[in-house]
């Protein structure tokens, strides 16, 4: 299996689906030049300017047009550049894309993949760093993915493009250059809806369950390594998708560990960690031998200066301390 970057894995996923299905179509700003992070490099040359559509700065039009195109038979891949800019197109995503199928009584689906690069990227400050995955998980009609690895980005992106629902697909900006082995040869059905929503256990262990997604998975793995050196073996679950999310995998794990930490880069208050903790407390109360714990960002905006920015990061050290606290 080749080692690809997270960026390249995403690029290959788009290429594969565009080759298979003429109705797949990318639209976003500066795509002709490869997109702002190079994740569309070379696509215009292969697929032409019709299918790789370089858009005006009009997030509302990009999203809205994609909704209309999806209802008229296309399968758009929308590029929002930074998840923060998608806030210029919330009506289009939440009031339109997410609800059209339902409101119209099933007359039309809205197959749409909305790529929203999210998360902190050194010194990008408050308007270019947000992680708002919890918002989208809250909205009926939407599917939400947050890939952590190159393989995730390949598999989940191919699946998302195939899924007939609007998928909010949140790549993490800090991961573009992360490398990992990618199995591109898996059978087609691997990319179908059936496989979607399954967590990956990145590391098995019995001392504590750590649930994470997106870039925070790597922080959790770092903590796990540190802890393992001390003989404490935690189980790290890469959730991969937030809606649907793999409740069974988390429940299975805490049945074993009796301890639950959920960690994410997003603000803790109203973050998706609350959903996971609450669900486990409601349905698997008896399995929890210790109070569950969220390790998440404080409810403050993200700063520009590195030292201030770091205040919203949950570090591996903090995870280690959290695990020890629950022992």
């Amino acid at each position, binding site marked *: 299996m080749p080692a690809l970057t997270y960026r390249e894995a995403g690029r290959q996923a788009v290429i594969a689906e565009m080759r298979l299905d003429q*109705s797949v*179509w990318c639209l976003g700003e500066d795509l002709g030049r490869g997109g702002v992070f190079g994740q569309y490099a070379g696509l215009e040359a292969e697929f032409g300017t*019709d*299918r790789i*559509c370089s*858009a*005006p700065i*009009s997030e*509302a*039009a990009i*999203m*809205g*047009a*994609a*909704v*209309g*195109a*999806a*209802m*008229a*038979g*296309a399968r*758009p891949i929308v590029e929002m550049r930074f998840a923060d800019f998608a806030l210029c197109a919330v*009506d*289009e995503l939440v*009031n*339109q894309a997410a609800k*059209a*199928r*339902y*409101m*119209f*009584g*099933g*007359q*039309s*689906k809205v197959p749409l993949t909305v790529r929203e690069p999210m998360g902190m990227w050194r010194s990008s400050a408050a308007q270019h760093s947000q992680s708002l995955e919890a918002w989208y998980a809250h909205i*009926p*009609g*939407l*599917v939400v993915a947050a890939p952590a690895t190159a393989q995730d980005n390949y598999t989940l992106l191919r699946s998302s493009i195939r*899924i*007939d*629902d609007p*998928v909010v697909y949140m790549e993490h900006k800090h991961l573009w250059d992360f490398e990992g082995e990618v199995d591109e040869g898996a059978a087609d059905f691997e990319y179908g*809806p059936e496989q*979607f*929503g399954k967590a990956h256990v990145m590391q098995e262990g019995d001392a504590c369950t750590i649930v994470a997604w997106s870039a925070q998975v790597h922080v959790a793995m770092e903590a796990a390594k540190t802890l393992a050196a001390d003989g404490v073996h935690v189980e790290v679950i890469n959730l991969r998708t937030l*809606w*649907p999310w793999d409740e069974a995998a988390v429940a299975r794990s805490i049945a074993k560990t009796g301890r639950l930490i959920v960690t994410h880069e997003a603000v803790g208050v109203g973050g998706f960690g609350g959903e996971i903790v609450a669900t486990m407390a409601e349905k698997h109360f008896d399995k929890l031998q210790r109070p569950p714990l969220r390790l998440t960002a404080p409810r403050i905006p993200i700063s520009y200066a590195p030292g201030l920015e770091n205040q919203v990061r949950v570090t591996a050290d903090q995870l280690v301390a959290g695990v020890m606290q629950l022992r």
Partner: protein
Amino acid sequence: MNQANLDTARLRERRRLMLRIRAFEEAAIRAADNKLVLGAIHPSVGQEAVAAGVCAPLRKDDLLLSTHRGHGHTLAKGADARAMMRELFGREGGNCGGKGGSMHIADFDVGMLGANGVVGANINIAAGAAHAIKLRGGDQITVCIFGDGAVNRGPFLEGLNWAAAFKLPVLFVCEDNGYASTTKSSAVTGGGDLCARAEALGVPTESVDGNDVMAVEETALRLGAAIRAGTGPRFFHARTYRLLGHTSVDPAKYRPDGEADGKWADDPIQRAADLLTSAGVSEAELTADANAAETEMQAAYDDAAGAPWPSVRSAYDDVQDVGAVPAPQGL
């Protein structure tokens, strides 16, 4: 049949359609008064010529997007009045299975991709539908109807610019009835010339008397042909008037005294009738047409009133494929 006969026949047909729209909405208002329709109803009484002139001549595979005031457009595009009435009543057999109601009326089978509860939201959606047509190489056109209030929202600029930049087959129709809810649009619309707004975005325009159904149709056909020929989007400004309130329960007291009364003289249905009378169509024929519309829509009303409620389980259907939540057990 000579040209005059042909036009008379067509005008009579369009009047029949306008009568059906009027009768449909009057029935819907009665139903709202009788608490059989529970959601808001936005009647288009007085504006039927736009619906009839723009939408009736479209091909079935042309696409249409509409507004909260969309019954007329939907009927004119060929949707079934009974299914629509059932939708307004929230009953089984409604176009949207009772999930949408008046503000989300849609009939994808006739290319009607939906009314919209968010003012202006259909503009970008229409541009995208047209984009999909263009990508496929089809020769359909997309028609997008919105009100004079929508021109002050961002999508007006973004959607028209998008359509112009990508030369898309879309006809933007501004149904200008002078009011956005209780507000006179002119009071909050800078510049005031809506055609100038569209022209500045690279979209050629035309403005017509929107209560003259044949003028509307002639213009719509001409613009539609240009669009179908691949010359990009057009903007159609149809000047009309909302004879009733914003919703069926709005007495519209905010209008200057007498304003609406004066406008009834301009009622597009009456204007069509007057023309038909001059062309020799008899009073009896005109009355018969009106009665037929009434009868059809009263039947739709009765049908809807007697229709069953949708199965409660269906509340859980058509949310999404992946991650759909199941209906509770025992439902």
